[in-house]
């Protein structure tokens, strides 16, 4: 639970809202639920800009209260265009009742927008009563990710198609499309989609890394090294050497698996051995670090 210090201090005073209690959903049951929500609402008023408390309410609430709070939370997130909204709400999907509620709320919003109104149906903001295109797009993005997480690939794909037709130049959309292809087993299409995402932002290191990984999954080893080389040190003998020096274990592992799939067990074994050397190197470095710590009298880590 990510608390800012003020919240932790304040909440320590209230029996129901001590962090261990709130962060454990099983500590809240129907007996103390409304009390917990009341306390959290009080905290919301006290700290109006704190998103954590409002998100915590969603974990704690259920039924109609949950729906209402969820709608407010999602509307706020979509209006702001928060790309990580899905990651935020993902944990709610574990609960069957909340899963149904989330889908119902999101589909309701979608129907509302596609019917010409705003997502919360009250037609404010725009003089024509329509929803902003950005909000609609982020809604589709959220919906596609939700379906993908729940394994409903058909619904996810249809939502993605709508979203991509709406705005083909958003890298996040292509990333979800790539992930969708990956989950349905289309490694080549996945690589292609992730490549399109990367092309939309050449300076994004994360997209570069993702594309490299998808290339390796598609067994395109040379191309993967070339793409990775866009972000490695230019004075290193090779992209691979730099990645090894930087102890980039995921790359070495993925490459090894790609070589194995291609039948080149020698190169795969070589990569595994490189990985072993990386770990040996970490151990050696740490060994040297003990002497350094002694010299600098930084001894706290050694004392229990």
């Amino acid at each position, binding site marked *: 639970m990510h608390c800012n210090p003020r919240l932790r201090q304040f909440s320590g005073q209230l029996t129901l809202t001590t962090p261990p209690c709130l962060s454990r959903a099983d500590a809240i049951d129907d007996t103390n639920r409304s009390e917990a929500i009341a306390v959290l609402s009080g905290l919301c008023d006290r700290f109006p800009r704190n998103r954590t408390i409002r998100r915590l309410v969603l974990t704690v609430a259920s039924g109609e209260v949950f729906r209402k709070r969820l709608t407010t939370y999602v509307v706020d997130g979509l209006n702001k265009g928060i790309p990580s909204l899905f990651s935020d709400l993902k944990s709610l999907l574990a609960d069957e009742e909340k899963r149904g509620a989330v889908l119902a709320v999101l589909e309701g919003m979608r129907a509302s927008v596609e019917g010409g109104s705003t997502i919360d149906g009250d037609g404010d903001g725009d003089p024509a009563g329509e929803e902003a295109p950005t909000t609609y797009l982020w809604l589709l993005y959220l919906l596609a990710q939700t379906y993908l997480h729940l394994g409903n690939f058909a619904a996810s794909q249809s939502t993605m198609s709508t979203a991509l037709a709406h705005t083909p130049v958003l890298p996040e959309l292509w990333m979800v499309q790539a992930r969708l292809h990956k989950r349905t087993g289309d490694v080549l299409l996945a690589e292609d989609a992730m490549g399109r995402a990367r092309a939309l932002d050449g300076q994004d290191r994360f997209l570069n890394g993702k594309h490299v990984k998808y290339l390796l999954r598609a067994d395109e080893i040379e191309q993967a090294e070339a793409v990775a080389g866009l972000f490695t040190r230019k004075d290193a003998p090779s992209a691979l050497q730099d990645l090894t020096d930087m102890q980039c274990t995921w790359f070495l592992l993925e490459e090894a698996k790609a070589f194995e799939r291609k039948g080149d067990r020698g190169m795969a074994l070589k990569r595994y051995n490189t990985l*072993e050397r990386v770990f040996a190197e970490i151990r050696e470095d740490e060994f040297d670090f003990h002497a350094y710590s002694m010299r600098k009298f930084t001894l706290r880590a050694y004392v229990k």
Partner: protein
Amino acid sequence: MIRSNDVLRRHPAFLSAARGAISILLSLHEAPYTPPSSSASSAEGTEGLSEEERRKAEKKAKKAEAKAKAAAAAANGSKEDEAAVKEKEDEDPTGEKAWMTRSPLEDAKPWLTHLEALGPDVPEAQELIARVALKQSESPPNTVRAGVCPELIESPVGKQSNT
């Protein structure tokens, strides 16, 4: 902080690498390996190549490597570059040294040492140690498959392993 080294090799990356490496080494022990065809002269499989032929092929490859290095050095010109390139020289560009091993199970020993140090509460490590131990206890190789009673095998499979 001293304890961090004890758990260092519990990292999933290390366990994945150990699993991959040991699988490959076990498969090399099982049956001769033919790498996917490539243009390099020494890339033919070990079957059919006698000791002498293999040594010749290795020599050839070494000569080609030295030639390429000389050419690169001439092209570079600067001494610093040479030193740097030498340091990071790739001794095994096609992965041959890795798979052309005479004793795959011996090669697995370094991995096993680390896995054993992880202790009994890491099941994946124990599984890998067990697999190699079972393979080593099979004698001769390829005649006893796990779970098959020796009496039921009509004739020993006379394949030679890489060892």
